């Protein structure tokens, strides 16, 4: 069966190395340090007062269920700034089966130019 030494071997990538077990140990130590630092935090805040209420730039707070950011609203700014890109690619993705075949023919033609003619 597999011996323990082969399991613990370091993963060599040709120009570097990677050992998940060492990494996990490091991560655990980092968590430990963070936990210790957390212990130094202030404890004397008062619950159910202004201190724990969320502040939404002065806007009134809605119910929790309505505050959820839906899937299509995530990364709104990113989509907005790349609108030109998505305009092109939405035009490409027509969803018609005939266009799918057309793309296949086009790619075959390009590959033929690259491999067959050159």
């Amino acid at each position, binding site marked *: 069966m597999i011996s323990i030494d082969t399991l613990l071997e370091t993963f*060599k*990538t040709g120009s570097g190395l990677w050992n998940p077990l060492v990494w996990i140990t490091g991560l655990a130590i980092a968590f430990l340090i963070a936990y210790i630092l957390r212990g130094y935090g202030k404890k004397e805040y008062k619950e159910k007062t202004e201190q724990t209420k969320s502040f939404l730039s002065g806007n009134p707070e809605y119910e929790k269920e309505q505050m959820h950011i839906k*899937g299509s609203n995530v990364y709104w700014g990113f989509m907005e700034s790349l609108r030109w890109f998505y305009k092109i690619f939405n035009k490409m993705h027509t969803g018609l089966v005939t266009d799918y075949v057309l*793309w296949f023919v086009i790619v075959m033609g390009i590959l033929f130019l690259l491999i067959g003619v050159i």
Partner: protein
Amino acid sequence: MNIEQILDTFLRHSPALIVAIPLLGAFLTPLISKINEKARNAFVIITILATNFFIFLLASDVFAGNIHTYVFGARNISTPLVRILFEVDGLSAFMIIIAGILSLAAVIYSWSFMKENTGLDKFYTLMLLMTAGMLGMMLTGDMFNFFVFLEITSIASCALIAFWTNKGKAVEAGFKYITISAIGALFVLFAIALLYAQYDALNIAVLANNIQYTFLDKIALVVLIAALAMKAGIVPMHMWLPDAYGRAPASVTLLLVGATQASLYGVFRVCFTLYGKRLGTTIAGSIGEGISLYILLGTILVILAIVTILIGVMMALKQIDFKRMIAYAAVAEIGYMFLAVGAGLTTLGTAVSMNAIKGGIFHIINDALDVGLLFLVAGAIYYATKQTSLNNMGGLARNMKYTTVFFLIGLLAVSGMPPLNGFASKILIYESVYQVNPVLSIVAILCSILLLAVFIKVFHSAFLGPEQPDLKDVKEVPKSMLLAMGLIACIIVFFGLFPEMVVNNIVQPAANALASNMNYISQVTGVI
């Protein structure tokens, strides 16, 4: 006969049995389902388990350095070679392991997932047929046989995609898929006919030994690469893939991932083995004077890969439908394999090439597991909430704890976060591709970050946040679905924690088989 002799006999016949057992099981399923449903489900699982037993038996022997050949209907290879021949080298063995794991998880998952549907005997028949077709594509050493298994896989998977015939979109996706795969497979057959016309052979090894790289061979190469790349979902021929993946039942999608990778295997087999002897040919054209074929082919693969990664990720970012989003991410992941193997092809024969190919091949199994796990999670969410759009989800982590953990594992693995398996293969790809061209590596890393962003979007909008009013009484999914997801998640964590062992024992033989094709040829033809 003692146990060793029996195992030896099994090993000798395992290439045939791996395909034959699912086929026999497929046709026995309608008869057994007359007894009752549980017996049928158990029978299907036992069939797949038996197949997996032979797969691991065969793979463990192939990884030890042997190439297995199996001639149908005769004991030995005879000349002239007219019989159908299965040939299993490291790469085939690697691929059948993937197919075995995926089909096992898919069948276990279907037990509860498809429970409410009728016509399940046909569902399981098709599922076993599809498994047999996939395994056949990976094992066969014969071009025409490859075509037949390709068609078996496409027909079975098309019927499975359109299994929910009460949904118009599912039927439409099935129609798109069968159109694409019928045309692709017919062009593959055309290329095979071109090769047969010149060399009077259908066996891959014999063809590879005789191939001359004439003009007709060039056409055959173009057609084979284009058609198989379309079946593998390379941009811009990827558009069938989100439709098919998004509309199929989740357990079928898992098998479709395997079918896509069988086509990917076809591309690699054509580039490295079928044309392997002529890779050093310098091209005598007017423009590309003096360029070797392997550089040209590698460059083509790399260009396709970069386009695939970029567009796949960017389109995934925009999707709202859960499964479509994962499907676009799967397109991008296929691009990583193409990138690594293409970069390996451009620098064939160097140490960099070996590392790149290793990374690409390691990524095949990682992608199958990661993307497969995510699809299963998507299916679980659909099972629990009957929703597919991310807009209607939220706060699911409260009620579906195990599913959330599995999703988190899949998320981190697919976007290449340490310490899971996606990172191990991606770092191999980054570092080796960087030595070929730094820009490629930078694009790959950037897109990997975007991939993380894609799944953070899903994680945020589906699992986190306050509980939605209409999702209050969502329950955790049944045990068989959790078992299937847990099986894959365990393998992912194991591969992530011990990458060196996996690479040395499984990936290295496959990469060797890809890089040095002469063993494959000489096993059949006897020429060295």
